[in-house]
């Protein structure tokens, strides 16, 4: 049962009313409940440069096995440690087995040879470009998720944009207020006696940065306290670690109907220069955590997944050829996942550029055939209901729809 606005004010407002504070943000937080079910986009960033060629394996491209003598994943017809056939050309890494049934249900779309068109092989620049959404142009001040929040006016919930973990990712930095939350339970002031004075201090601060930050923080805390007891406990088995814990928090916020539209989570450890492994090993371990996390999220949300599209991305792919240490170095195009019941899944999208030496990007990497902004634009327009995404990705013309949604 949702609290009425009056109950909400009663349960949280005593201290503030006693102080005679303008209760604007309280009204705002209380009003958020009316927003109720919204469309949600969840972005998962895989920091470090995931080796897409070993994640969705083009096993029918003969060059693949020649380029990767020690780390290639065996084709689906092999006896053991084999990849999972998707469509007779591509196969899924075996550690991603939990995603196969979602793919088969047509709710996981894969876009191969996708990513950022800029040729940088710097982690920092490549991540930055994908997060600000203007590859090659560093001066863009805000992240593209923030621009979405800024350009849509779906009320004023402090929970419209939430990143899990302590840090605000570049993708969400900007003038629209966003939240970061590590743990819903711990998202509270430990000393409740000081809270009213602190809130007032921040509300009246002449420092706009901290005034806005405090406003958002206190509104979010008040709202969470009123809803947290009503959020159903999750039965899904998330993998241990920050990534799984983060997805679990996002799922709870979706179920809590606090006005969440944009959520962000990240998973590190993809920079596999050495001993990357094939069907098992370093990359496989990362994929296991990723796959189990996404599958748990999908299961946890159940029919609430109807509102959700989850998108994965990583700053660049890796060299087509393995390096001298049974690993791979920084490369170019990669693979993206789009997951959700509204997705036209069960298919690998994107033109395959091939792996022959003469078609490799700069002679070494998988070439790019789908700009990541095309994927994002399509989700923003077809799922989130934006008329056009050109304000979110200035200077970018998405071209015709890929058809993933």
């Amino acid at each position: 049962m949702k609290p009425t606005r009056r109950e909400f004010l009663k349960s949280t407002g005593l201290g503030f009313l006693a102080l005679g504070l303008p209760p604007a943000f309280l009204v705002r937080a209380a009003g958020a409940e009316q927003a109720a079910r919204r469309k949600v986009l969840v972005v998962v960033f895989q920091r470090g440069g995931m080796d897409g060629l070993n994640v969705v394996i083009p096993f029918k491209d003969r060059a693949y096995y020649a380029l990767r003598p020690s780390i290639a994943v065996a084709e689906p017809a092999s006896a053991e440690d084999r990849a999972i056939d998707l469509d007779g050309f591509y196969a899924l890494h075996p550690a991603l087995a939990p995603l196969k049934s979602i793919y088969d249900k047509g709710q996981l779309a894969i876009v191969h040879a996708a990513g950022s068109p800029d040729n940088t092989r710097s982690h920092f620049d490549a991540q930055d470009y994908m997060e600000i959404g203007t590859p090659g142009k560093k001066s863009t001040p805000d992240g593209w998720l923030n621009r979405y929040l800024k350009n849509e006016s779906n009320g004023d919930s402090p929970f419209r944009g939430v990143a899990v973990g302590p840090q605000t990712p570049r993708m969400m930095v900007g003038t629209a207020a966003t939240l970061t939350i590590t743990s819903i339970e711990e998202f509270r002031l430990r000393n409740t006696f000081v809270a009213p004075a602190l809130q007032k201090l921040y509300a009246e601060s002449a420092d706009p940065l901290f005034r806005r930050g405090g406003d958002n923080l206190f509104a979010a805390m008040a709202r969470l306290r009123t809803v947290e007891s009503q959020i159903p406990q999750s039965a899904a088995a998330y993998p241990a670690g920050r990534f799984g814990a983060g997805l679990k928090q996002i799922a709870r916020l979706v179920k809590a109907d606090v006005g969440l539209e944009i959520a962000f989570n990240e998973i590190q450890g993809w920079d596999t220069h050495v001993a990357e492994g094939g069907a098992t090993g370093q990359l496989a371990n990362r994929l296991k955590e990723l796959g189990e996390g996404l599958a748990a999220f999908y299961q946890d949300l159940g029919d609430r997944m109807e509102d959700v599209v989850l998108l994965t991305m990583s700053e660049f792919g890796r060299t087509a050829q393995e390096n001298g240490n049974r690993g791979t170095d920084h490369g170019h195009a990669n693979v993206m996942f789009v997951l959700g019941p509204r997705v036209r899944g069960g298919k690998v999208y994107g033109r395959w550029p091939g792996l022959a030496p003469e078609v490799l990007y700069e002679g070494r990497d998988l070439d790019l055939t789908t700009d990541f902004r095309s994927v994002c634009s399509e989700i923003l327009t077809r799922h989130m209901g934006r008329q056009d995404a050109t304000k979110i990705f200035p200077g970018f013309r998405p071209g015709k729809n890929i058809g993933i949604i």
Partner: protein
Amino acid sequence: MSASLSDEQKIIHLLNRISFGPSPKEVQRVKRLGVRGYLNEQLAPETMPDSAVEEKVARLKTMRMNSRELFELYPPPKIAREAGMAMANPMNAPRFIILELQQARLLRAVDSERQLYELMVDFWSNHFNVFAAKGADRWLMTSYDRDTIRPHALGKFRDLLLATAQSPAMLFYLDNWLSVSPNAPAARMAANVRRRGINENYAREVMELHTLGVDGGYGQQDVREVARCFTGWTLRRPRGDAEFFFNSRLHDQGPKTVLGTRITAGGMEDGIQVIDLLARHPATAKFIATKLVRRFVADNPPPALVDRAADAFRRSDGDIRVVLQTIVEAPEFFSREVYHAKIKKPIEYVASALRLTEAEIKVTPQLLRYLARMGEPLFLSQPPTGYPDVGSSWISSDMLLTRMNFATDLAANRLDGARVQSRDPDNVQALARLVAPDSLSQATQSALAESAASEKLALLLAAPEFQRR
């Protein structure tokens, strides 16, 4: 043009920028020595006795151990199991080594007399970041901090660069120890399946992050050539008596061209030439100057000051002290525009709170957990960029909340490992003058005036003014 800073504000500003924050004692010291005198003293840390804090650090037993001793005492779980060591005891886990490193770093930030030096140790630790939880780096980090970063933190940039290039911790972290010429005879041996060719990781980061900067004018071909120059720069016994050595059998003997310069020395000298080329490249002077001005002056470094700092870098052949002196003595440093313009990083926030309150500290896991929740678990930045130095990275709602909780816990003496000296309201008023003399906002002033005596210190430490430096 706005009014210039008062003398009192100048002192607070100086301590906010070249120390981990003002304490009553330190403010007296600046008053006695004058701004320039204090700076000169801080630029000559070797002349300053620092026994009090070093005695505390010496009680952390891992700080003096070499990597072999650390590996034997804190072995990886598998080896410990085989040796029948008590696994239940977390004091025997490799994690304990990182815990002591974190303790030492925070102890020194709070209590060292050599504040500018410690601050530069923190700066270079991020600039030359190594992730302490990557494989063998668990046992190599102690030496990296003690024998690589600390001896050169106020020395010559070129020496620091070379020391990191040859440090077992960096060789392991950025994989150069495995990078070999594909044509080297040793690389073809069956036993060397892990080393059959070039690994670009270090070659790229040494230019992008350590020297030229990402826009410093190098290309993919340069990355390749630098990697060739550093083939054979490897290490012996990464999980034992780790040490750098040059293995000529793994080195690419062919000629190379880096940034238009032919490298023909051969052998280990190839790498040394690259170090010299990069350390003395104008793009490096500019890049290091920009980062230092960002640390000491403003998130958007004034270009004119960056140029002068870069010039000082070049003229002094990368003498870090000379560059720092140029920056701190510049008019831009004390301009009203940059007063309280920087937002404290978590270690700066925590250390400054402990210094302001003259807290007696035993660095406990609880204190360190707070730092982690604020987003800066020390020595544990996984990407090679280290922790960022711009305010926008450090003021998310979760971080802000954690800072508020830290402030209230500390002020109430509920923080295990730190006891503040005095919570007396008069003292809080005096401390407020060390935070923002004659510049406390109306909101903070009235909060301090209206709140209960027991809450005043918490409010001061949680106030927006104290989030800035």
